[in-house]
């Protein structure tokens, strides 16, 4: 990547500003993930409400990024790394906005979850998963700020861990629900929370892919690992529920 300034200094200022917006947005999203995970863990509805309220700030920044990016496309006709930067920034802001939404959704579910007793050891697994996803998000954003394609490639590889954690949690929650019908409501919410975390991981991966495109000029060649196996678990569900199968 070239660090040299543009002849037209205002273009540099605009690029710098759009970077600042992404960094601010990234910071808010990291905070939202952090707070919604903590709120869930310590069963703090006040904290979870904060996450819900703060989401509109993330949405507003996304709008600003889009407006500025479109302005730059029309006024500057960016080429090469400038063009890739603006395309990447637009996609990354969209990723971040979705990540914010998932964090908000987690926070919303927390207020329902606190009305039921904790779900035993699954809490620990969920804590581990949210920690991994937070780190993945942080690393994806760092790779963008530092224009580090190696770090971005590492994020893509690590998304596999998140998928595996989700598969494990899916089975755990299913077991809870089958063992005790009273746990169905909280377990369903936990399951959605785990799914939200898994999707946040996917978006972090997508940010990493944009970083690779930004730095190298092409998207990563390898198909990224996708280890969410839950759509294929009908068979296990049948085994678990063999005694009271529903007739079609």
């Amino acid at each position: 990547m070239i660090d040299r300034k543009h002849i037209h200094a205002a273009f540099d200022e605009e690029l710098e500003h759009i970077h600042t917006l992404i960094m601010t947005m990234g910071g808010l999203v990291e905070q939202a993930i952090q707070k919604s995970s903590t709120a869930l863990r310590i069963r703090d509805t006040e904290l979870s409400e904060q996450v819900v309220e703060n989401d509109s700030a993330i949405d507003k920044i996304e709008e600003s990024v889009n407006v500025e990016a479109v302005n730059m496309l029309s006024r500057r006709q960016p080429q090469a790394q400038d063009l890739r930067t603006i395309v990447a920034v637009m996609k990354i802001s969209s990723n971040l906005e979705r990540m914010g939404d998932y964090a908000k959704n987690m926070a919303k579910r927390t207020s329902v979850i606190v009305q039921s007793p904790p779900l035993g050891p699954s809490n620990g697994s969920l804590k581990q998963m949210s920690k991994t996803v937070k780190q993945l998000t942080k690393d994806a954003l760092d790779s963008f700020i530092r224009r580090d394609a190696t770090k971005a490639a590492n994020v893509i590889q690590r998304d596999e861990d998140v998928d595996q954690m989700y598969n494990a949690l899916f089975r755990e929650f299913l077991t809870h629900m089958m063992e005790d019908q009273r746990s169905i409501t909280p377990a369903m919410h936990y399951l959605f929370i785990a799914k939200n975390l898994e999707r946040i991981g996917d978006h972090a991966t997508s940010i990493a892919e944009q970083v690779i495109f930004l730095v190298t000029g092409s998207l990563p060649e390898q198909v990224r690992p996708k280890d969410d196996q839950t759509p294929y678990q009908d068979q296990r569900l049948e085994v678990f529920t063999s005694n009271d199968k529903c007739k079609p």
Partner: protein
Amino acid sequence: MSDNTQGSPEAVDLDSTLSAVKVTAKDVNVYYSDVRALQDVSMEILDHTVTAFIGPSGCGKSTFLRCLNRMNDTIDHCRVEGRIELDGEDIHRRSIDPVQLRARVGMVFQKPNPFPKSIYDNVAYGPRIHGLAATRAELDEIVESALRSSALWDEVKDRLRMPGTGLSGGQQQRLCIARAVATKPEVLLMDEPCSSLDPIATSQIEDLIDHLRESYTVVIVTHSMQQAARVSQKTAFFHLGNLVEFNDTPFIFTAPQDERTESYITGRIG
């Protein structure tokens, strides 16, 4: 020339990969007196392809363009070294008549320069001196065909006897293109053909270039990178007399390989 002049695997343009090589330049050096304006330029220009030359002023792009039809021969202190082939034949061979060569490799200049003659005579000039028409009817046909292929026929068919200089700038440039294609060239060289035109006339010429490609090999020198991106399939970037990078146009404008190309097209060096 660096490795960056090789085609990229990502940006394969089927159209251009299927085309045959029309012009080949091998180690071309150009000197104006003792000043070396072009250094060891080698490239292959494909048939039925628009190739754009970009680069800052004084980078050698126009000098190289003028090598392709030996226009530099007309400059006393200019010396061209190296080999340039048209369909595999060396254009500097003694048996090659530069005038005949220029009929095969036509040229359109930066500023529209119609002769102070009628629209008809402007276009008929080349075919007349090259004896391409035996009868008046044949000449009429050539003039009409050339004006049609330069997208000017409908605008001038009722005033062919009016002076060419009375047309608008954009029309004059299309008249010059008609004049260039009237001799049925194989290659059309364009040296900043839109630099003195307004955006509408520029769009018309760019649209025309798209169509000209069906019949000719087009090489265009342009200062407008957007124009190169819009009209060409291949782009060559020149800098300080060197061919820095030559590749498929989409590749040059999204992911150039050489830092100098990147700096130039993103507006970091002049």
